[in-house]
């Protein structure tokens, strides 16, 4: 920031844990069900009901904590955050406060060639609130859908160590990607599975003390993050440099208006009266469970990227693209493995070929939605297709042309090639016949070539391939052309 001010950002991410049931009851967390059909006495907080912790949710949060290098607390404590609002069935939220499950972790990323290591202060478990549906009925009624109430979340709190909106965006993307690879979050931003609040402040460069922070809510898309933070930073700098002061408050990002709007000031903020939830004994996590979580960690994107570059010889750009989504990475690795086995290519060469085809042809057909990705074909299909190219049965061009007819089907490339009569012509006699025809039709160009203008070779290749409907083995076509043209010289 050329203005003499430094930006300070801390992010709080609420990530839904990828469980089948809620944090304290057996109700389903499936998205999109009719309102109030996935509820029970526990998640609507009926009198007498009690919370029973979901072991799977704890396991997933633990996995995230271990992956992010956190210290795991053997006895963490659920606490009640007390405030009245209709989306909170008990008028308190069960969360963790003084003694969270995970603390003191970090997230590493590289931005513009510079390495960053952002501290993660804590990861704690908490239940989601219900959803208020305003303006129902005659327009003045608010109805509450408790399907979401009690959905397991983990809140991941970064230190105030991000210095720009670009860093904030990168942090979020890397965190998002990491959680998806861990299988702890489905990464679905539209359905609210991964939500972010940002604490933003500015201070004169060189000043140690932090400026007054503003909490920005509702930043639920990577597209918003930069816009929202940049807007807020500009607003604060304008205020401060104009002699004003930033008010401690919560603002919400309104993307339609392209600005943040005040929600409530912290001066009138509520006292949440946190205290340990007497319904829930301390959450015990054994050393063995922590060890098991550590052992079960999958290879994370950062490692994958490095491996793709080092052992497969991919470019950093290709490696980044292929390692950014667990389904794509898994697809790539499987296809490369199959290709190597079927084509007798070296693993690195097979990887490179699979990567190239994925990057240049397949990825544009791939649709991702959070954790799920529609690849269009199976790794088996892709490996078979590329094996046909390797064995010179078809040309690379033919392989590309075949792809659309494979998408969304379980057809085998080999069979398709046979059906469409696409088998590459590697028969020298057949190629010679075509070449002779072409040469006969273009005597002028033949003369030119023989006079030393060898650039017309390309013209002949094109003509031969055209005559063969692309089925000629390019290498052989080239060889035969060279041979026959030079023969007559």
């Amino acid at each position, binding site marked *: 920031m050329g203005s003499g001010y430094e930006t300070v950002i801390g992010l709080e991410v609420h990530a839904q844990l990828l469980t089948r049931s809620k944090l304290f009851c057996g109700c389903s967390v499936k998205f999109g069900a009719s309102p109030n059909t996935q509820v029970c*006495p526990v998640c*609507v*907080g*009926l*009198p*007498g*009901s*009690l*919370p*029973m*912790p979901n072991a799977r949710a704890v396991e997933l949060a633990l996995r995230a904590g271990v992956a992010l290098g956190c210290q795991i607390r053997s006895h963490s404590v659920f606490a*009640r955050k*007390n405030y*009245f609002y*209709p989306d909170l*069935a*008990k*008028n*308190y939220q069960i969360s963790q406060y003084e003694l969270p499950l995970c603390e003191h972790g970090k997230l590493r990323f590289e931005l513009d060639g510079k390495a960053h290591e952002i501290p993660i202060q804590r990861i704690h478990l908490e239940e989601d609130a219900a959803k208020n549906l305003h303006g129902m009925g005659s327009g003045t009624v608010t109805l*509450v859908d408790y399907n979401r109430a009690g959905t397991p979340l983990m809140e991941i709190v970064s230190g105030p160590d991000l210095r720009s909106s670009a860093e904030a965006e990168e942090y979020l993307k890397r965190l998002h990607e990491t959680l998806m690879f861990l299988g702890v979050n489905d990464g679905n931003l539209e359905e609210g599975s991964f939500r972010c609040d940002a604490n933003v402040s500015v201070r004169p460069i060189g000043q140690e003390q932090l400026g007054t922070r503003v909490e920005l809510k509702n930043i639920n898309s990577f597209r918003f993050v930069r816009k929202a933070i940049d807007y807020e930073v500009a607003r604060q700098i304008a205020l401060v440099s104009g002699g004003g002061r930033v008010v401690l408050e919560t603002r919400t990002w309104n993307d339609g208006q392209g600005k943040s709007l005040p929600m409530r000031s912290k001066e009138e903020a509520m*006292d949440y*009266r946190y*205290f340990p*939830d*007497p*319904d*829930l*004994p301390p959450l015990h996590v054994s050393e063995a469970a922590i060890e098991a979580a550590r052992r079960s960690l999958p290879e994370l994107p950062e490692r994958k990227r490095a491996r793709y570059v080092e052992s497969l010889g991919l470019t950093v750009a290709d490696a980044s693209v292929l390692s950014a989504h667990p389904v794509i990475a898994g697809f790539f690795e499987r296809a490369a493995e199959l290709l190597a086995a079927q084509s007798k290519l070296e693993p690195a060469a097979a990887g490179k070929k699979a990567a190239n085809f994925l990057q240049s042809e397949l990825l544009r057909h791939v649709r991702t939605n959070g954790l799920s990705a529609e690849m269009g074909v199976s790794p088996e299909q892709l490996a078979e297709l590329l094996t046909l190219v390797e064995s010179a049965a078809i040309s690379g061009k033919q392989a590309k042309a075949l792809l659309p007819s494979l998408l969304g089907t379980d057809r085998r490339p080999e069979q398709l090639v046979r059906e469409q009569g696409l088998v590459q012509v590697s028969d020298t006699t057949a190629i010679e016949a075509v070449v002779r025809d072409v040469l006969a039709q273009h005597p002028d160009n033949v003369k030119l070539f023989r006079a030393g203008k060898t650039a017309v070779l390309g013209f002949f290749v094109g003509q031969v391939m055209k005559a063969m409907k692309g089925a000629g083995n390019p290498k052989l076509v080239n060889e035969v052309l060279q041979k026959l043209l030079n023969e007559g010289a």
Partner: protein
Amino acid sequence: MHELVTASVTEIAQAVRDGKVSAVEITRAALARADAKNASLNAFLHVDHEGALAQAARVDASPNRTGLPLAGVPFGLKDNLCTRGVPTTCASKILQGYAPPYDAHVVEQLRAAGAVVLGKLNLDEFAMGSSTENSAFGAVRNPWDTSRAPGGSSGGSAAAVALGLSAAALGSDTGGSVRQPASFCGVTAIKPSYGRVSRYGLIAFASSLDQVGPIARNVRDAARVLGVIAGRDSRDPTSADRPVPNYEAECERDVKGMRVGVVRGITDEGCAPAVQQAMARAREQLAALGCEIVEVDMPHQKYALSVYYIVATAEASSNLARFDGMRYGLRVNGDDLRDTYGKTRDAGFGLEVKRRIMLGTYVLSAGYYDAFYLKAQKVQTLIRRDYAQAFERCDVVMTPTAPTGAFKLGEKIDDPLQMYLQDVFTLPPSLAGIPAVSVPCGLTPERLPIGLQLAAPGFEEARLVRIAAAFERASGWAERPPGF
């Protein structure tokens, strides 16, 4: 009216199992008795004729009737226990019209054991009180003297059992709420160890202290009911995964050599002379049974009242937040959301409940939490340690259950501190999470019952049942209130 209607739990169950009487017959008789006599006590808030007869018919038709420990036994439930489709009010206007969609764990256990629930019993609103005068539906009267309080908060449960309106009842105990009314009404009650009985479906007052406990006319009956309701429940994370012993079998055993701890100096202050005399007599009777009487010190017991009114009110302030008129119960519409919350809760809660919510909100507030809540928890640990040390020297600790016999209705209602002092003896075991029993041990000159409280280490209910039954035999207690 069937003669067995006022018989004990074990007698009724035996008769029904043997086919000497049907559960329906007993239930009809019990409902008629409740209908006839409830007006004098105001013990029942709701009598569920239809549900009771249907359950009785199921018991009669049950192929394994002979194996049901509570076959056909008429029960009453404190009205803070959830009953499916049956009004559950906590004696509060705020739960007006509320009928839960599920049965509490203990209610399921009772029904599975063949018990017949006659209806729901009056209490101090949300179990907050020691006289049952804090009910939104009128005070309960003590069957021994209807101008007097039955104790509380399970006053309806104790009074109904004392007068034979039900063979046994369930109450809940947070700081003495089954023991003190049992003492006032001349019946037996057990407050189990924290975690012994599932709280699922018990509408919470103070979650870290609440326990459901049986009230019956003799120790054996209470022991049998405890055996039915105790045990692990996967819906209550605070319920203990420990085996449930055969409590009833303990009633037969002698107590020779058992060491009974008497707390030094405990009855010197605030105890009525009749209570002091009854304690001295109880001591002699226990000694005569072969018990060794030892003196123990409980230096932190004097803080129990203060600790309790911080911890319990803090939890209550949060537990009762859900009663806001949005989803069920009373709703008083205001100008906006905040106003509706305020008006609903103002109209729905009684004075004592409001007092405790305010106290609890205060002690949890920023800047006060450490000074009150945190410190109270530390002192609670000291009280637990007192017991741990005492139990190195004795097997049970004996005290009076309450400092006096039943007081007059209206006598203490305007003086909360005097009312709170009713619980000085029952609070320490609650704060320590240990089990305690109250058994009748005599009458005051006004013919009002006095209760003996015995407390044991955690999950030693069997020990309590054993000594309480032996004491009951030795004392020959067979007094019943007029009109029984």
